[in-house]
């Protein structure tokens, strides 16, 4: 974790410095009869604290005797992130054209296809069909949710 902590600490420090600076621009403390923290006070404290903690993280990583650097973002770890994140994002972008329910069915089919080690086409087809039907009954009929419809009217 040594290298990962160093990079995390540095990135967090930059973001926290920005938050602290922006919060400082908001009112930190109101004066007068009701003297109290202003809208910038808590974000300022939060930002400043993250800055201090990220410095502590960097110092700890520098002092660490750890010699082996464990890889954080390996191919094996990134694969499901890309498949699931990409699949969900793709389906969300299709909502305007296919409607919510059909897009979710397609996403379900895609994820079953991409995440299964042994591809079972019956499972893939079933999920693509069952998700839209089940969700129509649970959300549209049961919970009266208004979901976007697409070019097929569903």
């Amino acid at each position, binding site marked *: 974790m040594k290298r990962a902590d160093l990079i995390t600490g540095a990135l967090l420090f930059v973001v926290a410095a920005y938050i602290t600076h922006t919060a400082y621009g908001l009112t930190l403390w109101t004066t007068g009869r009701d003297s*109290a923290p202003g809208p910038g006070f808590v*974000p300022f404290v939060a930002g400043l604290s993250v800055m201090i903690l990220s410095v502590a993280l960097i110092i700890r990583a520098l002092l660490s005797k750890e010699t082996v650097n464990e890889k954080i973002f390996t191919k094996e770890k990134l694969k499901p992130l890309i498949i699931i994140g990409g699949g969900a994002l793709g389906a969300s972008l299709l909502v305007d054209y296919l409607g919510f329910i059909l897009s979710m069915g397609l996403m379900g089919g895609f994820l*079953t296809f991409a995440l299964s080690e042994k591809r079972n086409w019956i499972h893939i087809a079933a999920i693509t069909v069952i998700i839209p039907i089940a969700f129509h009954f649970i959300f549209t009929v049961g919970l009266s949710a208004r979901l976007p419809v697409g070019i097929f009217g569903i």
Partner: protein
Amino acid sequence: MEALQNLFSIGFQVAFQPMNLFYCLLGVMAGTTIGVLPGLGPSAGLAVLLPLTFGMDPTAGIILLAGIYYGSMYGGSLTSIMINTPGAPSSVATAIDGYQMTLQGRVGPAMGMDAFASFIGGTVGIIIFTFLAPMLAGVAIAFGPPEYFALMILGLTALVSMAGDDPIKGYISAFIGLFLAMVGLDLVTGAPRFTYGSLRLMGGFNFIPVTMGLFGISEIIISSIGKEKKLHIPTENLKLRKLLPSWQDWKDSRIGLIVGSLSGSAVGVLPGAGATIASFIAYDSTKKLAKNKEQFGKGAIAGVAAPESANSSASILSMVPMLTLGVPGSASTAIMMGALLMFGMRPGPLLFDNNPEFVWGLVGSMYIGNFFLIIASLLLVPIFARIVLVPRGLLNAVVMAFILIGAYSLDNSMFTVFMTLIFGVVGVILKFLKIPVVPLVLALVLGRLMEISLRQSLIMSQGSAFIFFSRPISGTLMAISIIAVLYPFIKKLIQKSRNTSKES
């Protein structure tokens, strides 16, 4: 006596209404299923199924969520015993002896004792809850803003210190959560904070897409890493007759059941401690008290009874600080508190006076839910066991679709869906970097309330922070918080000095 009167005259009357009974049963069954599913724990389960409560009557909603919560806490232990894969951290202790019993061909009595221990621990927890919660609410009614602020600080510091391995990363997570809670219009002055002109951000970050992303999506992604294990479930030994523990099993487990139920109740009520710590304390204490200490770790049935009864009672009691003080002590109760706020309920001491049907209905439903749980766990264990065999790809596809549709139905907006996805990716990155997400969620839920209490306190004291230390209750809570902050560092120092003295 007033508590009993309220329980019978209000609680059971509400809980026995057909729809509430249905939601209680649904919650218990859905919770147990989620607990059994690999990768989904109680927090993820609550986050994923939260959309089902949209538009529901608040009492029915909380009955459903509570059922999901304690159902999933129990469900997690089934996989601990069968395949040595705890569904939740609170079931790790159950796996030690439970899995050994499975290897010895005693999966039936292990699963049976697990169900009975959960029932006994849960019942003890609910009985204590019935009397303790109104008492605590009565005390908390005298709390002012400084006490509330101190209490929330204690909740956060205790959680980071006791539940996490790395306090620096724990506090980073908590402060990120606190910052996220500040995004949006300032409640007092109306000044926009970190909104960058976006109307969507003016209302701040809704905690539901954040939790669905951080717990739901990230859990799905993490559980999809690596190769899927081939599992063998010994369903032939899970028939009702084989589940019933023998007289000797009961005799061997009695100390574990008593110690587990009581220690779980005591630890569960503390903010930050939770069911995981409770189950390990119960396991260790029972081992120390047992005559057959050498059997522990090799398949002692008391090693299943103690942690499971503690797990069950602690999960029930962990709802006490959330309901009576408005300060959740764990991720699951933070999600439940967020749901309460969504229902328009304000958790805290006045909840008992203002919404007795809601609170006592929940208490009544937990007694009933506990009965549903034992019946379901004895009759349906073979079915629950087979759920583990559902292919991972299939399961994750369905859960993912459920999360996205739930995110959309929150406010009929694709913006919320994208926000859920972003927080899902953030959750995965935080987990890769070993930054805990629970403090972030707790701080997000508590952030605005903390800010209001802080401002009110400082207006009362004309800007002096001494107010938090000069009042007896807030002073005590702040002192405990300081100890909680220092505790992990002191513990490390002691460990280091012990190691050096051993070496020398």
